[in-house]
């Protein structure tokens, strides 16, 4: 699968909402993984095939890629608790539960095989830059 990652359309909504004095969107700090095989798209709102594990809370910080603090970074770890699986996608969400919350980032990639007890620490970055 070609690797693909987007700050999806909902993610743009979340970004501008968080600039408001009283934002209604939560931080997109909940990390989830899945086994969906199709490439991520900008219009995605959910993972294709979410894993059975619960979303885990990541740590969000500002980091510097090019200009000081131009990048949002979220680092989160998920542990495989049921059968081994072939992880092919990751998402950042605004909530813990799968029935609420918005998708901020969706990435798809070549398979990462994990067995029960194995974990993946994902580092997701979104860099905001001035238009060229």
């Amino acid at each position, binding site marked *: 699968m070609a690797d693909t990652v987007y700050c999806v359309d909902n993610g*743009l909504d979340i970004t501008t909402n968080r600039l408001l004095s009283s934002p209604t969107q939560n931080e997109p700090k909940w990390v989830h993984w899945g086994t969906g095989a199709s490439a991520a798209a900008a219009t995605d709102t959910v993972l294709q095939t979410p894993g059975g594990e619960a979303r885990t809370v990541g740590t969000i910080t500002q980091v510097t890629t090019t200009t000081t603090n131009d990048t949002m970074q979220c680092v989160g770890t998920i542990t495989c608790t049921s059968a081994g699986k072939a992880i092919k996608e990751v998402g950042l969400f605004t909530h813990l539960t799968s029935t609420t919350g918005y998708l901020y980032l969706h990435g798809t990639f070549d398979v990462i095989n994990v067995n029960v007890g194995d974990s993946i*620490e994902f580092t*997701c970055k979104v860099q905001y830059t001035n238009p060229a």
Partner: protein
Amino acid sequence: MPELFGVSRPKASVSARVIKADGTIIDLGTIAGEGREDPANMQKGREARERLNRLVKEEEQNG
């Protein structure tokens, strides 16, 4: 004239490290987005995946 006002979607990337149940850490590097295509990253990722798949296969064979 969108090309003049060029509003662009933020650049995103995902890196990953696998932490095996026994504590072994396998750094896959950047697996999607900005930096993925860097030759050094591609080489690092290829070698890491080969190691990971070998370990997973051994675990499955050992039950």
